């Protein structure tokens, strides 16, 4: 393997782009997915604000979005992305499909994490005469914090691999580099380096996530 053929400035730029795509879409995924997950949890049967109809609708939408393979979603989203930010290409163009693809996934994770919170604790709060909204934000979410951090970690890693996939339709980052150089120009070296970098990034995210979970765990 001849590493001298590699243009390192391209590699670092692509790494940076991958981090930006992952970071920005993670931000919007949490922004959309967290409320959605909370809503799924509280409207479910026998929960704080049981609303059968709302739950059924939300759950259906989440399932539909989750059943579309991400590669298809990337293509289907192109016109929407163009309307939203003017282009479907590059780093910006990849962000809308990334958010739409992972927010429902994250919402489900949030719902599951919240279900793990001891019912008795929520009941105790109700018995104290505390308003439901206050229970959600003052007790439920803090109790679920370690689980929520773990869910964010898993989502960040999923986003990173999706971000690489967006290279197929002209998104930026390491995936784009791997496809253009590693695949189309047969530069195996580029392919190896991109994969190695992705492995390192995923390790770092997982490790940091685990440390944070540990830090916030009081059990």
């Amino acid at each position, binding site marked *: 393997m001849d590493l001298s053929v590699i243009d390192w400035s391209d590699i670092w730029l692509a790494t940076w782009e991958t981090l930006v795509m992952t970071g920005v879409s993670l931000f919007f995924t949490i922004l959309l997915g967290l409320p959605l997950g909370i809503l799924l949890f509280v409207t479910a049967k026998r929960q704080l604000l049981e609303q059968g109809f709302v739950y059924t609708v939300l759950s259906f939408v989440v399932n539909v979005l989750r059943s579309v393979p991400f590669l298809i979603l990337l293509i289907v989203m192109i016109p929407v992305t163009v309307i939203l930010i003017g282009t479907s290409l590059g780093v910006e163009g990849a962000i809308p499909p990334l958010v739409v693809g992972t927010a429902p996934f994250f919402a489900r994770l949030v719902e599951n994490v919240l279900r793990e919170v*001891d019912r*008795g*604790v929520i*009941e*105790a*709060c*109700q*018995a*104290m*005469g*505390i*308003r439901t909204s*206050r*229970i959600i934000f*003052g*007790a439920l979410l*803090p*109790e679920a*914090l370690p689980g929520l951090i773990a869910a964010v970690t898993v989502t960040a890693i999923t986003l990173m691999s999706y971000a690489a996939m967006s290279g197929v339709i002209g998104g930026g980052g390491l995936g784009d580099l791997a496809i253009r150089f590693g695949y189309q120009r047969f530069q195996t070296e580029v392919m190896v380096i991109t994969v190695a970098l992705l492995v390192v990034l995923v390790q770092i995210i997982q490790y940091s996530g685990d440390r944070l979970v540990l830090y*916030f765990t*009081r*059990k």
Partner: protein
Amino acid sequence: MIRIENLHKTYRAADGREVAALADIELEIGAGEVFGIIGRSGAGKSTLIRTLNLLERPSAGRVLIDGEDITQLDSEGLYALRRRVGMIFQHFNLLNAKTVADNIDWPLKATGHSNAAERAARVKELLALVGLSEHGHKYPAQLSGGQKQRVGIARALANRPQILLCDEATSALDPETTQSILRLLLDINRQLGLTIVLITHEMQVIRTICDRVAVIDGGRIVESGKVADVFLHPQHPVTRSMVAQSDALAAASFDPAHAYMSDKLRGTLVRLTYIGDVTYQPILSRIMAGAKVQITILQGEVSSIKDVPFGQLLLELEGGEEDIREVFAELDRHQIHHEVLQ
């Protein structure tokens, strides 16, 4: 203080049938009283106590607290009610992510007490009350079961409730810790004049702190009254079997038909029950000194129920019919209850 009228609770089971969890419940609990509800698991006691703060909504009937029917309250009214009724739980239900002090602060903070200094003072006072002044900074996971329940009690008292509901509050604790928690509850009951309603399956708990008790079985109250009356003269089979299962009070549920000595008995089998000051007076010896009757003590206990002393003895009396009748008359004169078993 609390009145339950004609309360019913039915559930729809998975197969669509209606199951009655509570039926025809009538109860009256006085202010400042420690009232116990005892029953086996599945008897409906947990459902019953949870109707007192509407964690469980009754299907029919009324629950009156200070004359107000709480089943009619709107959501604001319900919030206000629940702040006047504290509750502690078998598994403590503390917030694991908050420190002990923050757990106690939480009901204050979350119900609109915005003055942080006042809250801090109240938390300090409550920590002292439950004997945890040194532990405010710890997390629940660092505490023992008994300490966790103390936090639960402090938290339940934060909003100065008039009523404290205890849902199997000592069932997850060892006997020694149970006693210390019960002592704390009794102290609180006396110091603050708090009305306590507790449910348990342990007779010992009722005996230690309750003034009155209701026995619940199959969703119905089968027997109720002063603790000494119910436990020393159990009427209903469920009460009898509960009394029989506790080592103490064996004489109360004594059944001559199943006793090992029944075939060896020659005389009359009598159960004596006495409650109050008479317990510590030498009445029995005085009566017997003058009587021409031989006595054998077969079984018995002299102890106290809450702070009421009592004694219960199973005696075999041998002597003439007339002499025995004379002894009975003397017993009656001293308000010692007797019951001929065989």
